[in-house]
C-alpha cells in the first residue's frame, strides 16, 4: 500500500520530478502548502539535496491532519506527518503510527528543552492577545483582563488548535482556579470562532479590542505591511507555547529518506523559510538570524507548556469547565 498511486490530473501536472525518483509524501496542514506558506520554498530546497520528489499533501488544519491520519490508519500514504502541536501529540502517539526519529537535535534554539523520541519540533510560538497600539492600559494578566471591560475574541477549543492552546494556557497558569478565570472572562468574550482566521478577521474589523493569536502576529503587519499599529499584551503568568512538530510514519517504505527530511528540517535551508512564511519562530535558528522586525516582538520570561501526556489528561475536564463557564 506504500506505493503511492500516481496522482492524475493537476497533481501530475504540478510534479516535475522524474518518475524513477523516490517519492517522499509529507502530510501537513493546508496553510503550509499554499503559495505563500513555507511549502514551495522548502520543497525546492530539499529536492536539490535529495534526488527525490517531495510531495506535500495539505489537509485542513493540525487537527484535521491528525484526523486524516486516524482515518487512514495502517493504510496511510504518508511518510512524514508535519504540523501537529504538543496538545495533539498524545493522540497521535496513541495511534501507534510514528517511529522513533533517532535524531540528536542538538541545534534546537527553543526556550525549553526537548527530548521527545518520536516528534521533532520545526517551529514554535507564544500564544498572546494581540491589540492595537492605541489601546490604553492593556491588561498584564488574566485577572486584570477578567476584571476589566475589554472585548476579546477567542477560538473554540473544540474546533481550533489556538483555542485549545488558550484552554491549556489558563489551565497551566491557574490549575484548579482555571474555572473561576473563565467565569471572569465570560463577559469579556464577544464571541468564539471556529478557527483562527475568523477571529483575526473580526479583530481587524474592530469587533474586539483584543484577539487570541501569537506574539509573532505583529511581525506580519510590521514586515509585510509596514504597519506598526499592532502589538501584544505581555502577561505576567507567562505565555503558553505552541510547538509544532513532525514525525516519521513507522510503516513508511522511505524510512531513510524520511529521516533525511527530518534532519533537513533542522537546517538553515528549512528554518530560515519559517519566520516570514509561517510567521512563527524557527525551532533551530539563533535569534540573530531572524529577519529584521522580529527583534521588536516581546519575549515572555516564563514559557508555559504542558507535556503532551498532561495536556491530554486535563483536556476533557478543562473543556467541561470552559463550556460551563461560558454557557452561563
Amino acid at each position, binding site marked *: 500500500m506504500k506505493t*503511492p*498511486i*500516481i*496522482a*492524475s*490530473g*493537476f*497533481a501530475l501536472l*504540478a510534479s516535475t520530478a522524474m518518475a524513477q525518483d523516490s517519492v517522499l509524501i509529507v502530510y501537513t496542514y*493546508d*496553510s503550509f*502548502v*499554499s*503559495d*505563500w*506558506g513555507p*511549502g514551495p520554498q522548502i520543497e525546492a530546497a530539499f529536492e536539490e539535496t535529495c534526488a527525490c520528489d517531495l510531495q*506535500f*499533501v*495539505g*489537509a*485542513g488544519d493540525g*487537527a*484535521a491532519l*491528525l*484526523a*486524516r491520519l*486516524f*482515518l*487512514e490508519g495502517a*493504510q496511510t500514504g504518508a511518510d512524514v506527518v508535519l504540523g501537529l502541536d504538543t496538545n495533539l501529540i498524545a*493522540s497521535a502517539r496513541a495511534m501507534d503510527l510514528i517511529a522513533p526519529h533517532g535524531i540528536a537535535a542538538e541545534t534546537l534554539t527553543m526556550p525549553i528543552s526537548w527530548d521527545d523520541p518520536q516528534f521533532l519540533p520545526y517551529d514554535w510560538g507564544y500564544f498572546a492577545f494581540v491589540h492595537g497600539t492605541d489601546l490604553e492600559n492593556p491588561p498584564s494578566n488574566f485577572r486584570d483582563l477578567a476584571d476589566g471591560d475589554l472585548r476579546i475574541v477567542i477560538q*473554540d477549543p*473544540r*474546533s481550533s488548535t489556538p483555542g485549545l492552546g488558550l484552554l491549556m494556557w489558563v489551565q497551566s497558569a491557574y490549575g484548579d482556579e482555571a474555572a473561576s478565570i473563565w467565569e471572569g472572562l*465570560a463577559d469579556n*468574550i*464577544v*464571541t*468564539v*470562532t*471556529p*478557527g*483562527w*482566521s*475568523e477571529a*483575526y*478577521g*473580526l479583530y*481587524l*474589523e*474592530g*469587533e474586539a479590542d483584543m484577539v487570541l493569536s501569537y506574539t509573532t502576529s505583529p511581525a*506580519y*503587519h510590521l514586515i*509585510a505591511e509596514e504597519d506598526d499599529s499592532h502589538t501584544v499584551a505581555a502577561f505576567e503568568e507567562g505565555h503558553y507555547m505552541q510547538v509544532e512538530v513532525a514525525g516519521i510514519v513507522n510503516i513508511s517504505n522511505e524510512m531513510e529518506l524520511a529521516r533525511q527530511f527530518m534532519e533537513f528540517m533542522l537546517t538553515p535551508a528549512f528554518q530560515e523559510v519559517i519566520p516570514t512564511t509561517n*510567521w512563527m519562530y524557527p525551532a533551530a535558528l539563533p535569534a540573530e538570524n531572524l529577519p529584521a522586525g522580529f527583534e521588536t516582538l516581546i519575549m515572555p520570561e516564563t514559557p508555559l507548556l504542558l507535556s503532551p501526556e498532561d495536556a491530554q489528561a486535563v483536556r476533557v475536564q478543562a473543556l467541561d469547565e470552559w*463550556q460551563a463557564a*461560558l*454557557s452561563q
Partner: protein
Amino acid sequence: MASRAQPISAVQRAGAAIAALVLLAVLGPLAAVLWRAESLTGLGPADIAAIRFTIWQAFLSAAFSIVLAIPVARALARRSFPGRAALIALMGAPFILPVIVAVLGLITIFGRRGVLNEGLAALGLSGLEIYGLHGVVLAHVFFNLPLAVRLFLQGWLAIPAERFRLAATLGFTPRDIARHMERPMLRQVAPGAFLVIFLICTTSFAVALILGGGPRATTVELAIYQAFRYEFDLGRAAMLGLVQVGICVVAGLLVLRVAVPAAMGTGLDRPMERFDRQTTLQRAGDWLAITLAAVFLLMPLLAVLLRGVGGILTLPGSVWVAAERSVLLSLATAALAVALALPMALLIARGRARGLLETIGALSIAVSPLVIGTGLFLILRPYVNPASSALPVTGLVNALAALPFLLRALVPAIEAAEAGYGPLADSLGLSGGQRLRHVLLPRIRRPLGFGAGLAAAMSMGDLGVITLFAAPQAGTLPLEMFRLMGAYRTDDAEAAALVLLVLSLLLFWIFDRGGRANAAT
C-alpha cells in the same frame, strides 16, 4: 393528478433510480463512518443541548425567512420598474456567498463599528449587539431570504396572467385576490421552502458559532466536528449524523403534509400584466418592502465590493487559476444537479410516494457535509488517490447539496404544467421525451434556469469537502480565499471574495437569464 392512469415512462424509472442513488450517496457515507466506528456512542447532555439549540434556531430562521419573503415577493411580482431584473438577481447573492464573507459583510453593517451602530451613536442612542441567538437568526435570514423570495416570486409568476385579467373583470378586491389566487399558491410553495431553509440551517456551523457568541450556540454540526477532529469518536459522529437524518425525516413528513398542489388552471403563457386596481397604501407598502429588503440584502454586499475592489489587480496568480478551476467545477456541478433533479422532479410531480421522495431529496442538505465527506473518503480511499478525486467528489457533493433547491423550484412548475396540459397531452398520446420537450420544458424553463444557476453559484461559493481531499495545487476559489485569510493576507482575501461574488453572480445570472429568454418578466 395523483391517480392518473399512465404507463410508467423511462423518465420516471430514471427518477426512481436516481432517488435510490441519492439515498445511497447520502446514507452510504454515513454507514461507512458507522462501519468504521463499529459501535454508536450514546449522546451526552451537551449533545442534547446542541440538538435542542440547533432545531430552535433553524425553526426561527426558517420562519422569519418565509414570513418576511412573502411581502417582498408579492411586491416584486406586482410592481415593474427599471432595473427590476437586476435587483432580483443581485438580491439573490447572499445565498451563494461563502459564510465568512457574508458574516464579515454583515458585521460591516450590524457590528460594533458598523453603519447601524455608528448611526445610533450619532443619534445618541445606545448600540446594538449582534452576538446572540438574534444574530444567528439575522444571518440565516440574510442568507435564506433571497431563496424564499425567489421561490415565492416564481409561484406568483406561475399564476396565469389570464387569472388576473379575470379577477379584474369580476371586480376582485385585493382581499379576494389574496384569498382565491395568492393563498393557494403560498400553500403550495411555502411548506417546501420552509423545509429546505429549516434543514440548511440545521447544518449551520460557522454562522451559529461566530454570531451566537460562544458555546451557548453549539450546534450539532460543531459537535460532529469535535468528534471527528479532536476525539476521534466516529461512533459519536455517526450517532449525530443519524440524529440529523431523523430531524430531516420528521420535519419532511410534518411539513410536506401541509403542502397542497395549487389548482390554478392554465393560461396562455402570456407575460403577467396586473389589471387589478391597487390602493395607494398597497403601492406604498410594496415599495417599503422592496426598499427594506434591498437595503438589508445589498448593503453587506456593497461592503464586500468596496473592500475587495482595491486589491483585485494585485491578486496572486494562484487565485485566478483557482477561479478558473472553480468555474469549470461549478458548470459540471450544475449539469449534474439538473440531470439528477429533473427525473426526480418529474416522478414527484406524478404524486407517487411524494413525501418519501422529497425527503430523500432534502437529505443531502440535512446530513453534515463533514459526515458525507468523511464517509466518502473512507469509501473511496482504498481505490483512488484522495488528491486526484478531490474535484470530482466536491462536484458530486455540491450537486447533491443543490438537489433540494432544484426540486423546490421544479416540482411546483411541473405540477402546474401537468395539471393544465396533462390531459391534453394524454389525449394526444404524448409521453416520455416528446411530452418533456413539447409540454413540460417550455413551461419549466424559468425554474430550470434558476435552479441550474443556483447549483452553479452554490458550488462556486462552497468550501465543502475539498479540505478533506485537496491536493495543494488543486484548490478552489473559496479554499484559496480561506488560505489567504489564514495567512494574514486580509486585503488579498477580500479581493478574492469579491472575485468569488462576481463570478457566482455572473454564473447565476447567465443560467437564470437563459431560463427567462423571451419572457417579459
